[in-house]
């Protein structure tokens, strides 16, 4: 009987350890999958921001239009920005921030958010040579 009891205990410990290790493996794998998913979406947002900033209006790159307007305190044409972002981001679930300027897409039902940021070179000023332009996509 004593031998059987030890055997049962050994079996229990073995089962417990196995379940614990299996769970650890699954959790680990799940976290990596989440990370991959995040990276994938992040890359897409980064690419969307890159496409937006590289697009042109009247022969001028959007990055230059934004930088010049910010430095000269001129208002940024919301229509131009919105039109481009709407074309690039299908679900229209986005927010673009640069300096004090912010614009959000028409879709407000956004869940997960992915953010990409690039540094925008401004016309020269030693105290303010670049600014961050950030795109948040849901």
């Amino acid at each position, binding site marked *: 009987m004593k031998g059987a009891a030890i055997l049962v205990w050994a079996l229990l410990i073995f089962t417990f350890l196995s379940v614990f290790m299996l769970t650890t493996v699954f959790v680990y794998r799940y976290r990596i999958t989440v990370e991959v998913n995040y*990276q994938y979406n992040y*890359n897409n947002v980064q690419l969307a921001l890159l496409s937006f*900033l590289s697009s042109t209006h009247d022969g001028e790159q959007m990055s230059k239009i934004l930088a010049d307007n910010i430095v000269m305190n001129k208002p940024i044409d919301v229509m131009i920005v919105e039109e481009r972002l709407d074309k690039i981001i299908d679900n229209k679930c986005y927010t673009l921030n640069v300096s004090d300027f912010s614009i959000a897409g028409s879709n407000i039902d956004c869940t997960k958010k992915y953010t990409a940021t690039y*540094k925008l*070179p401004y016309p020269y000023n030693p105290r303010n040579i670049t600014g961050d332009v950030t795109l948040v996509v849901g």
Partner: protein
Amino acid sequence: MKKGGLPAIAIAAIVMVAITLVWGIVIHWAIGENESVVRSVREREIIKLINDMEWNKRVMPQVLEHSFYQASYSLASKGGYFNSNEVPSLDCVPYWKIYDKIYLPENIEENFNKTFIKYLNDYANALRLSLPRYNINYQENDNGIFVTLTSDENLEMERGIAKIEDESDFSGQFDTNVFKLIEKGKSFINDDKVSFAVKNSLGVSCEEIRDKIKNEVKQLESEGIEFDVEDVQTDCGGQVAAKILVKITDITKYTVYDYIENTTNLRNIQLKFYIITGNSELINVETTVCKN
């Protein structure tokens, strides 16, 4: 223990073997999956790096433009000198002529290169970009200057697992020509019209001589060339000297930073230099150290 049934030890052994088998399969699957997942993360990291490189390449023409116009503005406002302390200067504006002594800037292209590279590096540091050593070539044309930056080295970006390289050559056409502006200033000094104008002002009464000099010099003004007569000294006995700030201005305005006003704004690129001229050294040369 029942007779005819499996002994407990056998059941335990079967369970353990079964669990170990399942565990082995899971581990094998997880490791296999894990490898592809890790590879995927790494691939994403590389894509991120490529996107960053792409952004840097797209933003370089903009950096080139800002740096070029800022360098043109700075060099012109410092009378063509990279360091205006090389010669007597006042508020970073050099004296090009002090009576008989001439201080015309030499090696304008080299001075421009130094100024241009200073601004390029300022941008590169702010954008965390590592620029290679560039050879800069200027081709003057009817529309301004065509600038080419070439290097034997590539643009490099490195992040943990990967390092990428891309071609580093850039070029741009800019519609201002600071070299022409400086040449215009030099030919103005060589013509020495201001000295003639000052000397021609003699022969009027002592009270009138200041206004006479201002009028004579004013008449020399033409499109893009202005004079500020800042000081006139005379002994009322036929000796006279004048200190004049010469400003030669480009037509177009660019968004540039001014070190005196400490602001970035739309400004004309303007070559500035002082001249002190006359038939006697009645004006002392006032100088200050330029810190820009």
